[in-house]
Each structure stands twice: as structure tokens, then as C-alpha cells.
């Protein structure tokens, strides 16, 4: 066991932290979030130049990182910066599925993804799937050499700006079967693909996607027909490591803003940080953040273990991030009082993102139940 980061990761962390501190003020972030893509393409290009997208892919896939702790280190800093660029959608969701399932021709695209010139998104969740990863009703029917896709995809992260969609569809099996799910690489402009983008409350973008008799060549299929589920689950596991790590960064900002406010804001003639009730609640907040951080480390460090151990760690981290993210954001707002309720003050943007992380790939209760399920499998 070893609880220190490698020198490379420490350097990555410092570099990202410095870049964001110097180039990513909250006002610019909010402006980008309100733009038509929901992020800044210019900033995305700069992130790519810095190698941050490549840090999320392994060397054999054309990157120079890609391990759990690479995700962990990078996303803590992205969280501190409240970064809206599509790291998760393009590199971790779309990119991970592509890297796992794609043949050499298909994987050639990763070079452009790492360069930032091509954007991916994973069109997997559906209107009725809630958080259930195996729930796929969209169908993929064989049609000569190719396929025809029909169905709907819901809340597809950055689905409105992707050049390619990685689309899952059922080739066989029942609605909730893990087996029988296929994945396809679909250019966004393909006929029959209707994409309706919209903002989310935390300043991201997502899309509802209708697939209406979408005809695809055989070359669109990623991996074996009906065997895509494990790759999707792994991609989501990686995205969850990113989300829980991002949550740590967000919590740290909420914590620091609140500590600063408690130190400086006066009420009844003294800094409100002198009030013991607030002190004790703040101590709880600080303690819980360390719990969330440890759970994120566990998830990052267990990403390569066998499935049940990996997924237990993922669910544990996501459940804790959900519970503690809510605690931290609600307490930060409450201890600030009214000022935290305003758009201008800034804290709320972190709080909104922190709360919404609970809605990506499963909330506290979902992951608690999932932890129980995998505990049984592991036992």
C-alpha cells in the first residue's frame, strides 16, 4: 500500500490547478455555460493542448495516462474550477467505450478526441431507465449488412455538441438484460437522428435524442453484437470516479468559501465563525469531506479489481459523494445565509453542480442498493 501520488500525477495536478486559477474565472465559465454549446470550444482546445484529454486515455489507446488516479487527480482540479468542458462525455464515456470495443479503424478516431478536434457523447440512458444501466429499450435490428436503430435516449451529456454518438441499442434479450446490448458509433448528422439539446440546472448541456429508423453500416458496430454491456459499465465506472473526484474539488471550494465567510462576516459584533453551533457544524462538514475523499481514492484505486470489488468501491464512493455533497452544499448555503442564494456570489454554482452530481449515474439510494447487490455477489 502506498498513499502518496507519483511525481507525474503531482505535477499534473499542480499544472492544472495553476492553469485554471489563471485562465478560468467563474464569470467566463458562466458565460460559456450560457452559450449555445454549454462550454467554450476555445478553452477545450487549450485543455487539449495541455494534454488533459490525453491524460484520460492509456498509452496503448493513444493517451498517456488513463488510470483511476489520473482521473482522480485531474477531476479534483476540474471540480475546483467548476469546469464545464466535455471531459466526461467525450473522453470518459464515449471515449472509454470506443477504446474498449473499437477495432483499429474505429479507434483511429481517438487521436482526434485527444486532440480535442472531435467530440464524442454516450447515448445510453433512456426516458424510462432511471439509473439502471442495463435498461435498454432502443432496438438494433439487422438490416442486410447493417442495422436499423429505433428508440429514444435521455439526458445525454453534451449530446448536442458531439460529432459522434456512441449509441447503445438492444440486439437481443429483455428490457433489463445485461446481455444483448450492442454499441454503435454514429456520426451526429446521420439520417433519422434527432437531437434536442438543452441546458441543465448546473450549467451543463444535455440532449434528448430520438432515433427514428436510423440506418447504419456494419462498420458502425463497436465490438461484438450484444456484448457491449461490460464496456458501458466500465465507462460509467470511470465516469463515476471522475464525478466523485470532481465532487471533492467542488466541496473544497464550498468549504473554503464558507470558512472565509465565517472568518470575516460579523454578526452581533463578532465573526460568525465564533458561534459554536456553526463551528461544530463546520467541523462535521470538514470531517465528512475527508470521508468523501477517502471513498474517491478507494474507487480510483480499485478500478482494475474484479467486477464486484470494483463496483462496490464505485457505489460506495458515489453514495458518499451524494450524501456528503448534499450536506456540504446545503450547509455552505445555510451558514452563508441569503448571500449564498444569489447568482452573483458564486457559491451557488458550485452547490448546484454538487447536488446534480447525485443525478448522474445514480444517487445515494441507488448506489447504496447497488453496493448491497455487489456485496452479495462478492460474499
Amino acid at each position, binding site marked *: 500500500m502506498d498513499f502518496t501520488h507519483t511525481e507525474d500525477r503531482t505535477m499534473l495536478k499542480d499544472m492544472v490547478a495553476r492553469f485554471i486559477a489563471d485562465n478560468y474565472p467563474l464569470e467566463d465559465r458562466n458565460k460559456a455555460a450560457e452559450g449555445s454549446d454549454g462550454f467554450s470550444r476555445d478553452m477545450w482546445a487549450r485543455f487539449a493542448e495541455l494534454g488533459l484529454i490525453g491524460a484520460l486515455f492509456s498509452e496503448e489507446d493513444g493517451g498517456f495516462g488513463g488510470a483511476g488516479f489520473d482521473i482522480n487527480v485531474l477531476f479534483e482540479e476540474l471540480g475546483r474550477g467548476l469546469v464545464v468542458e466535455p471531459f466526461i462525455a467525450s473522453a470518459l464515456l464515449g471515449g472509454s467505450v470506443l477504446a474498449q470495443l473499437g477495432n483499429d479503424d474505429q479507434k483511429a478516431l481517438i487521436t482526434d478526441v485527444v486532440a480535442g478536434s472531435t467530440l464524442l457523447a454516450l447515448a445510453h*440512458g433512456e*426516458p*424510462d431507465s*432511471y*439509473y*439502471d444501466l442495463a*435498461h435498454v429499450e432502443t432496438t438494433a435490428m439487422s438490416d442486410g449488412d447493417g442495422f436499423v436503430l429505433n428508440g429514444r435516449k*435521455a*439526458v445525454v451529456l453534451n449530446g448536442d455538441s458531439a460529432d459522434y454518438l456512441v449509441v447503445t441499442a438492444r440486439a437481443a434479450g429483455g*428490457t*433489463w438484460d445485461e446481455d444483448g446490448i450492442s454499441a454503435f458509433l454514429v456520426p451526429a448528422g446521420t439520417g433519422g437522428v434527432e437531437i*434536442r439539446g*438543452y*441546458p*441543465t*440546472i*448546473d450549467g*451543463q448541456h*444535455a440532449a*434528448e435524442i430520438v432515433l427514428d429508423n436510423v440506418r447504419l453500416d456494419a462498420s458502425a458496430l463497436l465490438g461484438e453484437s450484444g456484448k457491449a454491456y461490460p464496456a458501458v459499465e466500465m465507462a460509467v465506472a470511470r465516469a463515476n470516479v471522475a464525478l466523485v473526484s470532481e465532487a471533492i474539488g467542488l466541496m473544497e471550494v464550498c468549504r473554503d468559501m464558507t470558512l472565509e465567510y465565517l472568518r470575516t462576516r*460579523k*454578526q*452581533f*459584533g463578532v465573526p460568525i465563525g465564533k458561534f459554536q*453551533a*456553526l463551528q461544530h457544524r463546520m467541523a462535521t462538514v470538514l470531517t465528512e469531506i475527508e470521508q468523501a475523499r477517502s471513498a474517491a481514492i478507494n474507487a480510483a484505486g480499485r478500478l482494475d479489481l474484479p467486477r464486484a470489488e470494483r463496483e462496490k468501491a464505485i457505489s460506495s464512493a458515489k453514495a458518499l459523494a451524494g450524501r456528503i455533497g*448534499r450536506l456540504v452544499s*446545503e450547509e455552505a*448555503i*445555510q451558514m452563508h*445565509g*441569503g448571500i*449564498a*442564494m*444569489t*447568482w*452573483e456570489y458564486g457559491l*451557488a*454554482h458550485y*452547490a*448546484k453542480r454538487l*447536488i*446534480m452530481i*447525485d*443525478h*448522474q449515474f445514480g*444517487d*445515494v*439510494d441507488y448506489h*447504496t*442498493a447497488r453496493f448491497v447487490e455487489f456485496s452479495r455477489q462478492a460474499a
Partner: protein
Amino acid sequence: MDLNYTEEELAFRDEVRAFLKSELPTSISDKVKTGKRLTKEDMDTWHAILNRRGWLAESWPVEHGGTGWNAVQQQIFDDETCAAGAPRIVPFGLKMLAPVLMKYGSQEQKDYYLPRILDGSDWWCQGYSEPGAGSDLASLKTKAVRGGDHYIVNGQKTWTTLGQYANKIFCLVRTSTEGKPQQGISFLLIDMDTPGITVRPIILLEGTHEVNEVFFDDVKVPVENLVGEENMGWTYAKYLLTHERTNIANVGANKVSLAHLKHIGRQQKVRGRPLIEDPVFSARLAQIEMELDAMATTNLRLLSSPDSVANAGPMSSMLKIKGTEIRQALNDLTRRALGPYAMPFVSEALDTGYNEEPIGPGYAAPVSQEYFNNRKITIYGGSNEIQRGIITKMMMGL
């Protein structure tokens, strides 16, 4: 003790229901039920309808045009109006200023202002908080200096809810800096049209305009607009804070929110089964329902109690805490019930006249913004921290 409604109470309930059925415009109740934003006209319309029926001022004494209802009748009215989707009545004139005027105002002030509150001539807003004085109201700095037959007011108020619609504001202002900070505060009524007043919107975290800053720059206020005595404003403000007990727990609104959550829980499916059948979700829902059921009784116990004045302070603080905590628990669980569809936020979808297909289920659009917006309820009206302080101090005598 008897928890059952009497025949008279049941008859009253039927009367309220009939009234709501015939008089509450569905154009308004539909908005309330679907979480859309109300316009000023919507609010004015409902105010006028209630006033016409004589049911606007439920907690006022009859001599001032109030209903004279007892606690149970008020709760029935609250339950039924909430369930029917009636808008909340804007409370600043009716429930906040009016009780102060009735107890401390001059005869002229009562005669002039109370009818205007009822008939909607005046839309009042509240000028208590300042940037440096939120929960710590006594440290307020807005100054009123007496000069002949008027005061000159300078300073700034903030968190002025719906101030953009108001033509009047009641303010706590500093008229003296001697003694304790609580001393030297006066209670002034100010016309919003007076030269020197500027209203600036504060945009809230979900992007809405609901509260304002109000700036006073040499604003001239006639001395007859002083309520009670000079430098006694703290007493009047505190009277309100500890004695305004009508529906502080928002029982009716909480019941509607619970019913709505149950509706959503029945619609949302997890692996093909209604979410409401999930054991953990249903347990969370039940916990809130049990708390709410208990709180509704606590509320009626308080309002019916003969020795209520003695208990008003701690008990109404308890109800404020519990009512807001239950509401936030409902908002939180509703948000969570939506799953990924809690994320989309098309703000225009909440405005009158938006006709596009909703993102996800039709009930999804307002849920997350309500969750975030309602973080305010434990902050305003005396934060829950302030309420906890009141409770222990009164119970412990420290």
C-alpha cells in the same frame, strides 16, 4: 380532546370547497399545480376574489374586516385552498404589517391603511434586512433623521421580496444611535414613489427575480408615517416575529407538496415498477408523511391553546423549524424521485405561454429549481438558527 371534525366544521369545509370550485380561476390553479410562475395579475386577481368573499384576512379580528375564524377553521381553509391550487396570498401587508398596525398604529393609520390592504390598493413590501443586518437585525444602519414634519431616510434594504410590484414599504430605520443597538430603531411606512428610492433586482441562484435591493437616498417621509413611538420599532418587529403564529408551519402547502410527491412516485418507474413501491423510497416518504401528520397536530394544538401567548415564542419557533425542514425534505425527495430528469432546466418552460414539449415527464421542469429556491426558507423570516436560539433561551431561562 377530539380529533374528528364537528358537523359545523364539515359544513364549513364544504362551503370552502364550493367557493373554490366556482371562484378560483383554473388558469391560475393550473399554474400553481404545475409549478409555473404567477404574474402580478394572477396574484391581484386572487386577492380580489378572496376580498370580495370576505375571506382574505383570515387571522384579522372581525372589526377590521377579518373572518373571525377559529384555529380549526383557518386550518381547513388553508388545507382546501392549497389543495385546490390557490396562490399563496402575499403576506407582507395582510399578515405582517396589519397586526403591527392593529396593535401599535394610530387610529388614522388603521383607518387609512387596513382597508387599502384588503382592497389591494396598496402592495406592501418589507424593509427589514440590510446587507450587514440579516439575522442580526439590531445592527441595521439605514438612518432616518427628523427634520420638522418629516424624516430624511438614507441607506439600503435588501432581500425585499416582490419589491418590484410594491407601492409601499414598511421599514425598520435607525433614529438614534444611543443605548443598545435594539434601542433607537423606528418603524416607518414609506411610499415607494417617493423621490430618492431605487429598486434593483437580485437574481437568485436559479436565475429568477424574486427579491430586490432598495436604496434610499435622502428620501423624505412625513412624520405621520411613523408607527407607534420613535425608537420603539424593535418592540413592534419582535412582536411580529414571536406572535405571528398563523400557519407559520405551512401545513396546507406541505400537504400538497407531499401529495404531489406521491403522484410523482407513482408515475416514476424503476425497472418497470412504480418508484413508490421501492421499500427505501417508500420508507423515506412515510417518514416525511408521519412528521407532517404530527406537525399538523402540533400546529392546531398551538393555535387552539388557551395559554397560547405564553407558548407562542418557543412553539411558533418550533413550527417554523419543523415546517421548513419538512418542506425541504419534500423538495429533496421530489428532486431525487426524478432521477436524471432532475437535471434539465429550461427556465422559459415555467413562464406563461410556453408551449413546447417538456423535457422528460411534465412534472419535472420546476422540481430542481424549487429545491434550490427553497433553501431560502430556513434562512429568511428569522433563520432556523435564530429560532433555535429563541427556543432554548425561553425554555432554559439563560
